Each structure stands twice: as structure tokens, then as C-alpha cells.
């Protein structure tokens, strides 16, 4: 008797489980019928991967390039332009013992700046003196063997001192 009762309760449980599964499947099928439009994201992910690989391969992290502009004397390269004011002559020379080192001096001034930042400060001091201003021409005279990096650094130092008229001399 007890066995038959157990069997009937087991079959009832089985029936209820089957009914629940059927109901769930029905709900699912109705749900799918309601939203038949699906988005296949696989091509989008493929494209994104391709873009990512492209940018990974092509990207180079570099410092930005800018331009320093200056006037050149025209018509004849070796002729010097006439300067109405007495120019400040900045001499940049290669140090004798070290090919990469340099020395700075200014004609007519005692100051001997050792760095280009110091040169900017010296030029600002000179501009504050009577008879000089930011319109006073500055002529950079560099050693022929001096590295171009130092010449540009010297030019940049004059621009940092707000010098409006910078020229290169021989």
C-alpha cells in the first residue's frame, strides 16, 4: 500500500515537473515570437578587432613638431642686412675639451651664461637697460662645428627673451 502511494506521489511530482518545463518552453517560444529581430554582434566585434589591431600597429608615440620662424636676408645670401640699431651679438662656441659642450658669450657684455635659460635671463636684463628693448636686433654667431641642437636652443632662448629681431651671423 505504502509503495503504491509512493509511486503515485512520484508520478504526480514527475507530471508537475513536466508541466512546468512545457510551460517554460511555451513562454520561451512566445517570447521569441514577440521579438523576432535579433542583432548579430559577431561582425561588429570582428570590425572592432580589426580597427584595434590597425591602430595598435600604426600608432607611434612621438613628441609633436613645431616651427621656429625667422627672417632671412634675401637677394644675396652672403650680404648682411642693414641693422639700424647696435645689435647684441651672442656667440655660441663649441667647448674645446668636449665636442657636445658649448660656451656662451655676449660681445660688449661681461655676462657669461652657462645655460640657455641663463642666456634668456641675461638678454632680459640687457633689454631693461637704457638704449635696449625687445626690438634690439640679436645676432647669433655660432661655430661651424657646433651641433645644430645648440644653435636652435640658443635661438629659442632669444625667443624666450621676447627678442623680436633675431638673425644669424657668420
Amino acid at each position: 500500500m505504502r509503495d503504491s502511494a509512493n509511486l503515485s506521489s512520484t508520478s504526480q511530482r514527475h507530471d508537475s515537473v513536466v508541466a512546468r518545463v512545457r510551460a517554460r518552453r511555451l513562454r520561451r517560444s512566445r517570447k521569441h515570437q514577440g521579438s523576432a529581430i535579433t542583432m548579430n554582434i559577431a561582425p561588429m566585434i570582428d570590425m572592432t578587432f580589426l580597427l584595434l589591431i590597425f591602430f595598435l600597429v600604426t600608432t607611434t608615440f612621438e613628441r609633436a613638431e613645431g616651427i621656429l620662424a625667422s627672417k632671412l636676408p634675401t637677394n644675396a645670401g652672403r650680404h648682411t642686412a642693414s641693422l639700424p640699431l647696435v645689435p647684441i651679438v651672442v656667440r655660441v662656441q663649441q667647448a674645446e675639451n668636449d665636442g657636445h659642450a658649448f660656451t656662451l658669450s655676449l660681445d660688449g657684455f661681461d655676462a657669461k651664461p652657462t645655460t640657455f635659460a641663463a642666456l634668456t635671463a641675461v638678454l632680459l636684463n640687457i633689454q631693461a637697460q637704457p638704449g635696449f628693448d625687445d626690438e634690439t636686433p640679436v645676432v647669433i654667431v655660432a661655430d661651424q662645428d657646433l651641433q645644430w641642437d645648440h644653435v636652435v636652443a640658443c635661438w629659442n632662448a632669444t625667443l624666450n627673451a621676447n627678442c623680436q629681431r633675431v638673425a644669424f651671423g657668420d
Partner: protein
Amino acid sequence: MRHERKPRVTSSGISFNAVPMVDVIFMLTIFFMLVSRFSSAEQIPMELPKPEHSKASLAKIPERVIINCRVNNLLSKEFVQAVYSIGPNQPESLDVIARRLAAMRHQSPNLKVIVRADRRLPYAEVREVMRMLANNNIDMLNVVAHVDEEN
């Protein structure tokens, strides 16, 4: 609003949720798209001057020609010599470059010349380019240097 998709449960019980991976890939793609800068073929890789507190400006010059002055690597390291080229072209002598410049300026008189010189070159090598430009009645010297990182 993002709809969270439930991960598909396989027969083995191990699921794969692709959503975080797609999110990360999108983020990386957007980052590289914003960061990458397409360099022109005219800008041959070289060591440019890096002055402190650089006053170099990021000005866009529409009509321009770039003269590259690179270090000639074929020679010994002690003797640094320059090779000159217009943009991505093959290296040429300064006389040839001067003739080409004259022809270009005949076609477009407002042409601006930008000099990209390697920082290791001796001043005399760049000075030759400056003389050549002056002889061609080019009154503006535009020299390329690195821009200050603080700007």
C-alpha cells in the same frame, strides 16, 4: 541603458561572457583612435632639436615644401655629414634642390620652406641650406623643433 545578456550555459556548465571583452576592446579602439597621429611621408624620422621651454608653434602652413637634412649614416661616426632631400624624395645635392625650389616658387610664389634638420648635424651643414634659401630669395626661415610638452 545596457541590457545585460545572460551568459549562454553550455552543456558542460562553463559559460563565456563576451560583454566585458567587447567593452574593453571598444575602449582600447577609441583610445588609439584619439591618440594616433598620422605622420606625413615628408616627415622622415630623425632626431629633431629639443630646446628647453620651446617656443616652436604648431602652425599649419598650407603651401609648403619640407627640406630634410639627415645624418649620412654611411660615413664614420666621427665625421657627421648631412644628406639633403625634398620631402620623401631621394637625397640630392643642394644645387639640384635649389633648382627644384626655384621651379616650385615659379609655380606658387607664396611657397614656404620648412627645414627639418637632425640635431646632431654641425651648424655648417644647415647653414648651407640657409644660404641656398637666401640665394633663392626665400625670406622666411622655418625650422622644425620639438614642441614643449607643457604646451
